[in-house]
């Protein structure tokens, strides 16, 4: 009987514990956002966190399409970028007319622009699902990007449209001249959007989006029009992408044609997919990691985009549910008494460590070879010496055999050693599973 009551979700849980469970996560998130600038207080860190906040909103809005509704878009930057331009124009208009609108309200203009273009383009593109939708989204993306080069008065040509965010009406004395003030503006909007987007997943529309993703045909036979479900999801995705684009324009006080471009559309796809589209939290993780990687990797290599692409393909091949999927696979081990949980994870991570060492050797070998090829082909003028990953200490002579042989040995040897560790990991995994089931029962 207890089985039955447990299986059916209760109408409303009103106990304090339940209430904390529902709202606690948001309180924690608020605290993290509030204190983060005190922990990572350097100027570069705050700039990075601003970019992360924008990307989180953008990636989650993307996931309303891909993860929730099953629509793969290659042109989501259209709504982000057009909203950025709308924002820049709006800010300039506010400055010119002196309208009493403070900066924190400006993202509403971005939201409206995103929603508007989401409705207009969504009406055309959501008629089709699947592959056709993906191609149409790509075509619309190109259409808008190409138009941006023609309609110079709206897109501002090469320079784009700039807007000085400090010239607006002061908001309780803040003029948003400093990056930290902008950080709190972005953080507040980010939190608001995350909460709203999470709430939408738990509404009738949100659930029908999942149904459309799973089986659009069956949806028609329970009274819903799958095209209309897609359309609303698309328009709402446009709205939140609009907020993200608006925040981006405020952040750098500029909207450029590249905002609507294919690279921006690709970036949000990468972020959402790497984080994992099957879980709400996935794109948040993805946004944080992709933002960090794209800033940090370029410090180490000129061809970091290539490594990025290889990482993306690796995730598609071996971890199709992304990072959040990998994490969630471990949730099943989190049961029983705390000491046994720690022991269980200790053993499992021990086996990961065993596998990680040869994997790391393999990866380093591959990177060494790629960097040397790059050096020889592109930088023959600089001579044979190469600074490996821009390190001043580790230099390689690309004209001698040793680094080449070393790279090949590390790559191939590392691969075979790595493969030998797979049974170890598999065994540790099965043991942990059996152990967790014992203590769960």
């Amino acid at each position, binding site marked *: 009987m207890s089985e039955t009551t447990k299986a059916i979700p209760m109408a409303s849980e009103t106990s304090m514990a339940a209430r904390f469970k529902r709202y606690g996560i948001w309180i924690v998130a608020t605290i993290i956002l509030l204190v983060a600038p005190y922990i990572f207080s350097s100027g570069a860190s705050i700039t990075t966190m601003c970019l992360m906040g924008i990307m989180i909103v953008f990636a989650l809005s993307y996931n309303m399409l891909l993860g929730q509704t*099953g629509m793969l878009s290659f042109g989501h930057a259209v709504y982000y970028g057009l909203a950025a331009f709308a924002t820049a124009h709006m800010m300039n208009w506010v400055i010119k007319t002196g309208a009493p609108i403070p900066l924190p309200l400006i993202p509403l203009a971005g939201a409206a622009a995103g929603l508007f273009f989401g409705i207009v383009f969504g009406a055309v593109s959501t008629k089709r699902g699947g592959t056709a939708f993906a191609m149409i989204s790509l*075509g*619309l993306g*190109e259409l808008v990007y*190409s138009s941006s080069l*023609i309609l110079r008065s709206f897109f501002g040509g090469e320079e784009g449209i700039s807007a000085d965010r400090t010239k607006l009406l002061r908001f309780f004395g803040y003029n948003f001249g400093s990056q930290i003030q902008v950080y709190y503006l972005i953080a507040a909007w980010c939190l608001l959007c995350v909460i709203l987007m999470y709430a939408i997943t738990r509404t009738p529309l949100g659930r029908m989006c999942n149904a459309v993703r799973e089986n659009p045909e069956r949806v028609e036979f329970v009274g819903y029009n799958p095209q209309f479900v897609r359309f609303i999801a698309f328009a709402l995705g446009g709205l939140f992408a609009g907020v993200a684009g608006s925040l981006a324009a405020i952040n750098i006080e500029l909207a450029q044609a590249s905002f609507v471009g294919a690279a921006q559309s690709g970036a949000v*796809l990468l972020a959402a997919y790497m984080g994992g589209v099957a879980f709400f939290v996935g794109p948040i993780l993805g946004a944080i990691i992709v933002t960090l990687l794209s800033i940090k990797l370029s410090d180490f290599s000129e061809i970091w*985009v290539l490594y990025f692409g*290889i990482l993306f393909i690796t995730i598609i091949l071996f971890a199709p549910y992304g990072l959040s999927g990998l994490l969630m696979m471990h949730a099943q081990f989190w049961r029983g008494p705390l000491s046994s949980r720690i022991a269980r994870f200790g053993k499992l991570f021990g086996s990961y460590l065993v596998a990680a060492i040869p994997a790391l050797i393999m990866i380093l070998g591959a990177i060494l070879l790629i960097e040397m090829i*790059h050096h020889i082909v592109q930088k023959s003028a600089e001579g044979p010496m190469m600074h490996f990953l821009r390190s001043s200490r580790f230099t390689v002579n690309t004209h001698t055999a040793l680094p080449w042989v070393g790279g090949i040995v590390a790559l191939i040897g590392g691969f075979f050693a790595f493969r030998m560790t797979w049974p170890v990991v598999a065994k540790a995994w099965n043991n942990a599973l059996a152990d967790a089931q014992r203590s769960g029962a």
Partner: protein
Amino acid sequence: MAELIIISTLNGVLYGLLLFLMASGLTLIFSMMGVLNFAHASFYMLGAFLGYQISQWAGFVPALILAPLIAGGLGALIERFGLRTVHKHGHVAELLFTFGLAFIIEEIVQMIWGKLAMDYRIPSWLDFPAFTVYATNYPAYKTFMLVFSILIFIGLILLLTRTRAGLIIQASLTHPNMVGMLGHNVPRVFMMVFGLGTALAAIAGVIAGAAFVTQSNMAALLGPILFVVVVVGGLGSLWGAFVASLLIGLLQTFAIASDWSLSKFFGSAFSPTRGTLLFDIWTVTIAQIGPILPYLLLVLVLIFRPTGLFGTRDT
């Protein structure tokens, strides 16, 4: 005027045929495997760069033979070891895999050949005017491209109608679900079709690369137009891809030759103020909007015929 029309028609048909060299492979792959190969234009680019490199070392004819073979072989390997692994995760994962692939191919091409345009020239033995239309010389190389593309299509038609593998491919065009029931040799046919399709794209790359620009952004520029072709034609329809290729080829070529704009059409009857959106729209010439015409066509077709011109299948 007649001169312009004849030359533009020739160029338009040529561009259309090149598009169809790629779109046909893309359509074959899509019909059989249900995967739209996002990296298809990347194989066109690979064809152009390999063609350039081989013709540097060994001349144009070896390049024309070897480059498609290498690119096609690479395509087959990618199908065998990449795409087949992702297959079980569904079409979205497959499409994303090819998206990632396009990304990587561009980066590798950039790593090896750099970002600048290659000095890939047409072979000197084809560098003469073939015939003259009024006062314009039509180059022999373009004539060669026309004839060569047509020969490839004849070969393709023979392959599809006269060989066993061709019959299986044909069956997949009309009865996509039945092919899966044909038995154990289907994966190999998949690999062959993927190899064939990518080789066709590479052929287009080898011959077009010499006539136009060979640069690491060529895949990103052409890819979206290619997808417009297959969506406008109707996904999975070979005939539709053919018609749409020619349509877009002619449309873009004629657009480039036209300097019409709204302001020219209406004369001085109305002139919006400089610097406004209306002014931009009023004064833009057809030649300037040439690049967006395929996408406008896409939107129009979708509004009036969502399955594409010849499409029957809902994907």
